[in-house]
């Protein structure tokens, strides 16, 4: 364990705490960028420059796609709609992350010697614990979407902790996957925001389970 990896791991966890705690989408995305950019650095040895570059570009582009949506000003010039934020507050989220961090560190290897640093497992567990609440209970696209990005990021951290530093191809595919997932979240968030005044909130459940019209005419024409 090196102090630098510890600092970077804490940055990942800290960024994730802000992601799940803040109600301002722009703050959420800034913190998400920090978490995604720092994640590939929680490895020993570090990935090759090509791999790191791929992940860096992937993280920035993924966050930028979300930023394009979050920076949007409405008709009245008001910036964005708030996202859900934490229901238990950031201090509780920090405690949750700290507990999971300790568990992840202690459980490093999950029963067998691991090839990666224990801090990667610790950070992975912490980020996964933080991601559960938004993924399960989130009621708006941005909160659930950023929670999902944190969740897959946690899996990547645990993967690094167990299997060691990923190779270049894996870094490239990881970056592409993050971009696709973030792009999908951004498109869905933009679609929600453009529909009425509810911001990024989910639709009323009654509208989601609608039966098709009995005598529907051909739908949307180009």
């Amino acid at each position, binding site marked *: 364990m090196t102090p630098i990896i510890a600092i970077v791991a804490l940055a990942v966890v800290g960024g994730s705490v802000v992601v799940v705690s803040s109600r301002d989408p722009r703050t959420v995305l800034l913190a998400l960028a920090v978490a995604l950019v720092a994640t590939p650095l929680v490895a020993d040895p570090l990935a090759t420059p090509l791999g790191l570059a791929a992940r860096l570009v992937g993280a920035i582009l993924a966050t930028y796609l979300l930023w394009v949506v979050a920076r949007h000003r409405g008709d009245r010039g008001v910036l964005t709609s708030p996202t859900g934020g934490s229901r238990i507050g950031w201090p509780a989220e920090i405690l949750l992350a700290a507990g999971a961090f300790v568990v992840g560190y202690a459980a490093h290897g999950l029963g067998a010697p691991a090839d990666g640093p224990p801090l990667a497992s610790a950070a992975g567990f912490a980020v996964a614990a933080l991601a559960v609440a938004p993924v399960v209970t989130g009621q708006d696209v941005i909160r659930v979407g950023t929670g999902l990005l944190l969740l897959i990021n946690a899996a990547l951290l645990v993967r690094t902790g167990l299997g060691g530093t990923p190779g270049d191809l894996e870094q490239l595919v990881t970056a592409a996957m993050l971009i696709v997932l973030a792009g999908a979240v951004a*498109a869905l968030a933009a*679609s929600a925001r453009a529909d009425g005044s509810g911001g990024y909130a989910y639709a009323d459940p009654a509208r989601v389970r609608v039966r098709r019209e009995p005598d529907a005419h051909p739908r949307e024409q180009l």
Partner: protein
Amino acid sequence: MSLLPFELVTTVGAVLALLLRSNARVATAIAVGGLFAAAVTALAISPGQSVVIGGAGIATTEYLRLFLVLGATVGLLLAVVGQAVGSARDAAAVTLGVLATSALALSLPDARIAVLAATAGGGFGALVTLAPTGGRVGATVGTRVLRATVVAGTMAVAATAWIGRDLTDLAAQPVVFGLAYLAFALAVAIRFGAIPLHTWAAPLTDNVPETALPLVTAWAPAAFAIVALAWADASIAPLLVDLDAVRFVVLAIAISSIVLASVAALIQDDIEHIVGYAIIGDAGVILLAIAALDPAAWAPARTWILAFVVARSAFAAWAAATRSVFFTGRLTDLRGWAIRSPALGVILGVVVVASVGVPGLAAFDARGTIVALAIDGPLGALVLLGALSPLLYYGRVLLVGVGRPAGGAASARSLRPVVSPVDLTDLRSWLTRTWSDNLAVTATGGAALLAILALAVSFGAFGASSAAAGLPPTLDVSRESFAPEDPQAPVGSDAPSAPPADGEAGEAPSAPPSDDEPSEAPPAPSPDGSPSGAPSP
């Protein structure tokens, strides 16, 4: 590397079409053109090639080629049908994205990387919810699709990472192998929307066009399932570990999906819901193959997957064409549909034969083999009967079709082609008019082509059976390299499903002997990481 043109065409096409989606005509033209180019470039793929990139690599197989050719062809036909019924604006672009990620997933020997690509495919799939209703409802449904995709991807990443390292000094009980296996199997179940993990899939049928449904619930998860099969056969099946407890869980999900999906489809009144549950039911057979944990299930499972995705796409196209012809998808309003439109009746008949099959068809035999390998005894016979339960809902639909039309039955479009004399002075108007006059004909024609294709695949045409019995991708073939020789696992080593990346251990998973477990070391997977039951080329 003959796969690269395909990757280039599909990736660029998907990105361009999605970026330009505000201009529907341009985006659609790009996506449909991209699908055509994808079909051509997929045909040009040469099996047996590989390229090494930084310690890992991608490799082509005959199965990959066939999957992509069928995917591009089916995607093109679904796109045409979707355009004809006016309901699938983004579907063609999403198809390109799903094909690009599927190509990557199926060409990666390392399961740890392949699951990432397959997860990205699910991300593309979520975008079909934005049309036609779009808005907040589409975003809500799409986010749930994305949630299922990412949760499944997370479980798969964790499972493959846990197994994909040196486990010779495993301190935990070997039964924890079962947890990794269960995690990946459940991930596949989530991706397919298997019952009872289908809560995200049910609203999907309400909100996406029929022609887009197979993309999300069949094609994108299919690549994920193939990766899971390869991983389980190479990393889990060879282990002498008692995994019956977790196998029962997977079997329970598979059987409940097969049976309950048929029951659900039987009581549905909308043909879109019937299509949705039909896909879930057939996916249960794939889960049975994963539950079998037997390398002998490798070939039939992959044969079934090919037949499943094409047949269900044909069924979805039939549903779209039927809605286009009768302006309704409700069975109560479709009484007499087969009499008033015999062509649609014939198409459904072909789809029934392709999806349920008859003895002698490759898909039928594959399903029987999978069931026999997964479950012994009388229960196996019952499950095999359950696998034929789609006949019940097909029968109901056909009975409605030959019934006497009610007084208020929906009017029907004619399926007679309408082609006015060519106006050379205004060719564009003539083309537009001809297209709009023949929407129902086009949709029905597309559905007919898909049904024929499905029947051919079920028969085992295009070399489906031999391609399915082939090896998974491996780098132990003639290769191109973009990097200096790396520490690949040498031929003859006991590497897991894929050669490890730089700096990673390449030992096969093994468990230490314990008091309760057999003392023999688990047999290593075959040298190339292929399922040990897969035949040599």
